[in-house]
């Protein structure tokens, strides 16, 4: 097995509310291995972004409570690091791409200047070396002519181009892990495919790991090596992406894959998952998915499910060990 770049152990993230902490992330165990593209999938509000931002500790520390550990490659716990140490890691070792490219760049600074700043801040490259590197990066992400774009302000570029620029910026310092928080959500479908191709290409070249957060199984099928499915702040299933796609085990994953529109289903209604995720401000007894699950029985409502592991590393959180989702696919 490949080494882990980040290993999340028992992570709980609580957000302050008037009635106490709301645990949006509850007891997550997740490893990101070297050189893989890991997809973190789930519906809105299931805690995907909370988990991802915790890796860089981007939450407002006055309103957030962390429990558990996030072990970085060097064996240190990110949640216990000093601010100075963290600044060394942010950007140079772990970088992050955000959802809306229109707002991630400083609106008053030329694109070139923003990229140069990164080099000036983190490395000792000379002005010319840094500029040459920036131009090369812009070219490699397909923002051309690089010389012209270098002198542009963010508002002069389209969303797709901006997302490319921010990818270029995040890759500038050769990070070992790139966290992409719904990188294609704000873009149209053709742009999505291009950005995903770009990510895949750059990942092959640099050998970095990518943690991609998405609510779109299509994205997973396209580029991910492994997938982790999240529901109500927990990871309910992990495994190789093709394995999960064709042999889902957890009922939520089964339903999620079942509700993807497929070609050749003329005149049929789209399958949906009834109900809503549970409230996160009180403890959940039993399986959080039980209320919406079509396989659930009484035991599911009272007893928390155990983690099942198959021999190929496929794990899932369900008391029903014999479920196979073949019929959903």
């Amino acid at each position, binding site marked *: 097995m490949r080494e882990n770049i980040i290993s999340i152990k028992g992570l709980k993230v609580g957000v302050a509310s008037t009635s106490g902490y709301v645990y949006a992330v509850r007891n997550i165990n997740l490893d990101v291995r070297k050189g893989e593209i890991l997809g973190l999938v789930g519906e809105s509000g299931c805690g995907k972004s909370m988990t991802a931002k915790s890796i860089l500790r*981007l939450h407002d520390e006055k309103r957030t409570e962390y429990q558990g550990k996030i072990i970085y490659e060097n064996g240190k716990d990110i949640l216990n690091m000093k601010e100075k140490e963290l*600044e060394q890691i942010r950007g140079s070792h772990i970088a992050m791409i955000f959802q809306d490219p229109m707002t991630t760049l400083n*609106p*008053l600074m030329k694109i070139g200047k923003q990229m140069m700043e990164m080099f000036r*801040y983190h490395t000792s490259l000379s002005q010319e070396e840094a500029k040459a590197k920036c131009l090369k990066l812009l070219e490699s992400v397909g923002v051309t002519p690089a010389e012209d774009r270098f*002198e542009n302000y963010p508002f002069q570029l389209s969303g797709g181009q901006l997302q490319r620029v921010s990818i270029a910026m995040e890759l500038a310092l050769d990070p070992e892990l790139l966290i992409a928080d719904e990188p294609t959500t704000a873009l149209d479908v053709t742009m999505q495919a291009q950005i995903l191709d770009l990510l895949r290409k750059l990942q092959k070249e640099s050998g970095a790991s990518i943690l991609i957060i998405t609510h779109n199984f299509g994205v997973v099928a396209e580029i991910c090596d492994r997938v982790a499915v999240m529901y109500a702040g927990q990871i309910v299933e992990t495994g190789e992406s093709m394995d999960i796609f064709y042999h889902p085990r957890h009922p939520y994953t089964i339903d999620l894959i079942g509700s993807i529109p497929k070609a050749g289903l003329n005149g049929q209604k789209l399958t949906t998952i009834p109900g809503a995720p549970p409230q996160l401000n009180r403890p959940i007894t039993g399986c959080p998915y039980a209320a919406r699950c079509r396989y659930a029985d009484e035991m599911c409502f009272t007893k928390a499910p155990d983690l099942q592991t198959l021999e190929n590393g496929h794990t899932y959180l369900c008391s029903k060990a014999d479920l196979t989702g073949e019929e959903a696919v």
Partner: protein
Amino acid sequence: MGASKKKSYGRFFTVPVVISLSILIFLLLCIIFAPFITKTDPNALDLLNVLKGPSKEHLLGTDKTGRDIFTRILYGGRTSLLSALGVVMISVVIGIPTGLISGYYGGKVDMILMRICDVVVSFPALLLAFIFVAAFGRGLGNAVLALGIVYVPMLAKLTRSLMLVEKNKTYVEAAYSIGYSDRKIIFHEIFPNCLPTILVELTLDLGYAILDLASMSFLGLGVQPPTSDWGYMLEENRAFLTTSPLMAISPGIVIIVFVVCLNVFVDGVEMYSDPSRRRMPSMKKLKKRMELIEHA
């Protein structure tokens, strides 16, 4: 085509900017080179020629002690502008960092800094000036210091509210994720985005400072006679508005011209500082350029 020159985006020198800037420069040059423009001593008394109207020797007439108004306006610009600038500088140096830090960190820091500001705000400006004068003696310097401190809370609170808006934007989070330190994020990423609004506030402050200093001088706290000063001239000559109006009106007009031009100029700077609002060449010019490209 001559594209080798690095072209900046948009135009800074729009018509209003050019006009206001040239008037400002003209005024400043007049003030700086006052001794070459007029040979008269601004403080020379001439009790035989009191309250005279405009004449060849006295372009704008004389005041109640026979001093030349024109000369006094030229020299008064030095005191007025320098002291008003001093007031604004003091408020900038203290107020902006206070506002930025208070808005960025929030919590206890914010609480303490803002309560201090509230105390200063609730203290009458003149009373503060009196205290300063009592403690450090009379003089323009102390009046400037006192007024500067009075201006701090306004600027700090404005900066703080701008910071509160900016700090939740994604580019700040992105800057965080790149690994920038707090100091870099506050002063290099967020501050430039607050600057346009702050600049406008500062130019308004400069106008207010001239007049506030004048009222302090009127009470004997600021400019000490016989030094001339625009605001003070306005105050002391007001009594003669019916008999020789030029005495009070002329420094008034100079103040108006200066403040208006400064505002127009800063509006131009503000517009330029946001690249998406910069003035582009006129449609006519652009059309011509397009035609040139098509023909080539």
